[in-house]
């Protein structure tokens, strides 16, 4: 070991861009660490990973990673990632997205990606608020939480993203919080290994906006809140809905095998045009 003072994850990061832009104590960095840990456990090569992200705090993550990445328009990372995957099905495509990006403006792209079961790994960092634009209420803000657009508390019902994506047909769905980084890394490992649409919801802390408006000013208070209120899915299945009010259900929601979209599409091309398809593909591959 020659570089002794560096974090084990520093070899994957663009050092000239550090320290990162996130607030002190933001959960995005923890999710990034968990991703690297999961990638190491899944024995994946960073050179074969392509990241896509939309707009938001969490979508700035691919800019810090030494791999090919796309920073795309708001809410559309899954559409761009679908393009990458269909253009080169050998690539491992990872989408980093936030709750506003995935659930609000890109909601349709999310459910249709899950419906097609295309081989993407979507890591949604859910901080329950629009952190970059000033603390507006997002579709995943819990009922009764405060934000700059809800000074008397949000009365809308929030999206349960993990359940939404499970219902839309994803083949791997898990939810963990940043207070459980090892479980999160393990879920990311399973998501990377899964052939199909994999969705990992990482509930994260935004103490700057969500915490400040909801009486949890420091990242530690938010982490304690997440740790105390998370209940594993196996336990939550046996509980009444009244007992689960205000709780975070964590765990693995779906893990199954189903036909994958890009594989099906390439099989169809092979079947219909035979050798001709190979010549088209080789023109792009350079041989």
């Amino acid at each position, binding site marked *: 070991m020659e570089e002794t003072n560096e974090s084990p994850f520093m070899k994957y990061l663009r050092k000239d861009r550090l*320290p990162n832009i996130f607030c002190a*104590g933001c959960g995005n960095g*923890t999710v990034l660490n968990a991703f690297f840990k999961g990638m190491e456990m899944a024995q994946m090569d960073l050179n074969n990973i392509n990241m896509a992200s939309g707009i938001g705090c969490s979508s700035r993550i691919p800019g810090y990673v030494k791999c090919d990445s796309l920073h795309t328009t708001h809410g559309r990372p899954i559409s761009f990632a679908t393009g990458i995957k269909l253009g080169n099905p050998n690539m491992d495509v990872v989408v980093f997205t936030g709750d506003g990006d995935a659930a609000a403006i890109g909601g349709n792209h999310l459910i249709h990606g899950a419906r097609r079961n295309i081989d993407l790994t979507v890591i949604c960092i859910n901080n329950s608020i629009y952190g970059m634009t000033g603390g507006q209420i997002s579709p995943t803000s819990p009922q009764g939480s405060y934000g700059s657009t809800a000074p008397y508390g949000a009365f809308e019902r929030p999206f349960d993203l993990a359940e939404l994506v499970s219902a839309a047909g994803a083949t791997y769905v898990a939810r963990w919080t940043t207070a459980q980084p090892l479980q999160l890394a393990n879920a990311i490992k399973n998501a990377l290994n899964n052939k199909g649409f994999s969705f990992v919801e990482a509930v994260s802390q935004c103490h700057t906006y969500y915490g400040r408006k909801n009486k949890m000013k420091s990242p530690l208070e938010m982490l304690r809140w997440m740790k105390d209120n998370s209940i594993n899915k196996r336990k939550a299945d046996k509980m009444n809905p009244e007992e689960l009010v205000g709780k975070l259900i964590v765990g693995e929601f779906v893990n199954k095998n189903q036909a994958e979209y890009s594989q099906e599409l390439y099989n169809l091309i092979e079947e219909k045009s035979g050798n001709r398809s190979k010549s088209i593909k080789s023109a792009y591959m350079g041989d």
Partner: protein
Amino acid sequence: MIKLDPNLCKGCNICMEFCPKKVYEQSKTLDKKGVHIPIPKNQDKCSKCNLCALMCPDQAIKVEEDDEQ
């Protein structure tokens, strides 16, 4: 041996909160950014679980295995 990079650390103290062995302590003085960064003071208690390195949002911590092990 725990190594903490003071240029990357932003002083969020997540490592101090989550360390199961209470290795870290808050510094008495402010650093150049104006925050109290944690110091890995009780290094002999460290069990090398690497949780601080995994949780650190700024990738500032490295936990090294001791040479004699």
